[in-house]
């Protein structure tokens, strides 16, 4: 499945490793893979549902604390997540809006990148986060170059890549 892929990274680069999502998207976008759109923002917000609705495959890229691995992959499905505010939507809630408002339900995966320092007003990534970013970019480069990125993500999630649902919500930092 090539084409119609959306990679969306979010976080605040002014808050240390919280900027891992945007940093990953910037690095991937420089390679300009065919058929892939990139978005980055401070938080996931309702308007991203319009972007999600136009994709067949969505990859959410976010920093994670307390993650079991440097980089992990897990599937995400629409869910009427309670407890969110629009200060930042969780990927599952965003997918639910895309389904409700646009009738779209793309396949979706979360790629979490472990960070360790989320201090405000810290512009650079920590050394550990930089290493983890490199691994994530390398991994996603390969995924996006594959004939079927979704299959690659599924394999990564299945074959020993740890999942960390607690860290994957996008708000739990």
């Amino acid at each position: 499945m090539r084409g119609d892929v959306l990679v969306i990274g979010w976080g605040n680069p002014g808050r240390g490793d919280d900027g891992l999502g945007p940093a990953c998207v910037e690095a991937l976008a420089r390679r300009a893979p065919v058929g892939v759109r990139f978005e980055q923002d401070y938080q996931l917000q309702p308007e991203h549902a319009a972007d999600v609705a136009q994709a067949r495959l969505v990859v959410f890229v976010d920093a994670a604390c307390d993650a079991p691995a440097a980089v992990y992959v897990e599937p995400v499905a629409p869910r009427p997540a309670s407890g969110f505010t629009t200060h930042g939507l969780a990927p599952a809630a965003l997918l639910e809006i895309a389904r409700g408002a646009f009738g779209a339900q793309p396949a979706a995966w979360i790629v979490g990148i472990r960070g360790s320092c989320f201090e405000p007003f810290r512009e650079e990534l920590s050394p550990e986060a930089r290493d983890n970013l490199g691994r994530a970019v390398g991994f996603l480069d390969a995924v996006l170059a594959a004939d079927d990125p979704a299959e690659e993500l599924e394999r990564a999630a299945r074959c020993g890549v740890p999942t960390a649902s607690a860290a994957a919500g996008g708000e739990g930092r």
Partner: protein
Amino acid sequence: MSGSTRRLVIEPVTRVEGHGKVTILLDERQRVREARLHIVEFRGFERFVQGRPFWEVPVLVQRLCGICPVSHHLAASKAMDRIAGVDRLSPTAEKIRRLMHMGQIFQSHALHFFHLASPDLLFGFDADPSVRNVIGVARHHPELARQGVLMRKFGQEVIRATGGKRVHAIVAVPGGVNRSLDPADRERLRAEVPRMMTWAEDAVALARDYTLEHLEQLEEFGSFPSNHLGLVTADGDLELYDGLLRAIGEDGATLFDGVQNERYAELLAEEVRPWSYMKFPFIRSLGPERGWYRVGPLARLNVCRRIPTPRAEQARRAFFDALGGAPCHVTMAYHWARMIETLHAIEQIERLLDDPDIVGDDLLREGERRDEAVGVIEAPRGTLFHHYRVDANDQVVMANLIVSTTSNNEPMNRAVRQVAERHLAGRTEIDDGLLNHVEVAIRAYDPCLSCATHALGRMPLEVELRGADGALLDRRTRD
């Protein structure tokens, strides 16, 4: 329960930007003595920015908040223009900034109305919170949800087109801007304007119809007379980017008018209360007891004499015709006022996109360096003040910010107190109804608590009820 005062605490108020905590204090007779919306984190931005070169500040302040970085970017830029000795930008620079600002107003108001407020309006204040949210709107009113998403997205696209990117956009620099609008972006945005205009007018009608159908209930809900503050032109027109300060009293009488931004500290002061990191601004001449004021869409409509775009002006006239003239003190009328401003924003965007200056190349001005300056802007949530002093090494040595939500601090406390009094009526338990009403009252102000306290991340908000002796009677949390 011994002692003379009891206390109720409610947290969190959901669907405000960030979270807060509400404490309701009762007296010996179980009547509400005081309500306090308070915050538990403090970010200390004013201290952080000290020692940084002044030209970095417009970029740094975007870290204040991921919700309204554009407003801080532009308010700081206006201050730094003056530090750089520039009192008048080139036409292209000013119009690029105005376009960015109108994009911010449009997207922020759309987000609030469609995704934060509309669930209360569509499902009722007392509907199940698990349904009364944006996902409930998407499920039960998909066309409305779709419009809200696409209006918000359009506003964000305006910001992206002017700033180059969404995260840490850099367009305004001291003395001007570093880019003009790409002609291709101009045409792309122009093509969307008619649809956005129609939807904005529809949203005004939705807010109007809701307000008028429920007016009897809304007039009593969290409403009270107050002073109002906002920016206007020298002629008294609504002015969101670069106006003069005007304040009116609860009877509509002018308290001050035509005040240059630099004089804000002569007229306004901030009270510190030991239980909150958020300050309490007030008009000096009236003192803290009588000088507190409201800002934001309702206040702006109250202080202006006209809106300088035809559709929004027509809507403004209908607003005051229906609500008994200015000033209007109905807190829930903030929603209607917010949609009138959304209509004004898209009218302004249309004008600016049609203006040849918007793709010009005269971007920067220079002047004689100053040591101190103030930048004031009407952010979506209200008047936003940035005040800086800079030393001979170009480093910031003082910063003071009054953010919109801080100005609405006292009004939000009063709104909570009013709804709590009506709801509790002598009871000492927090039920879903009280939680719902406290949420709705606070949400009318569209507060950004993260910004107001300079705190990032999640801030769970509780509601507590405490007795006359300070003892906790009840506590409820709603995530």
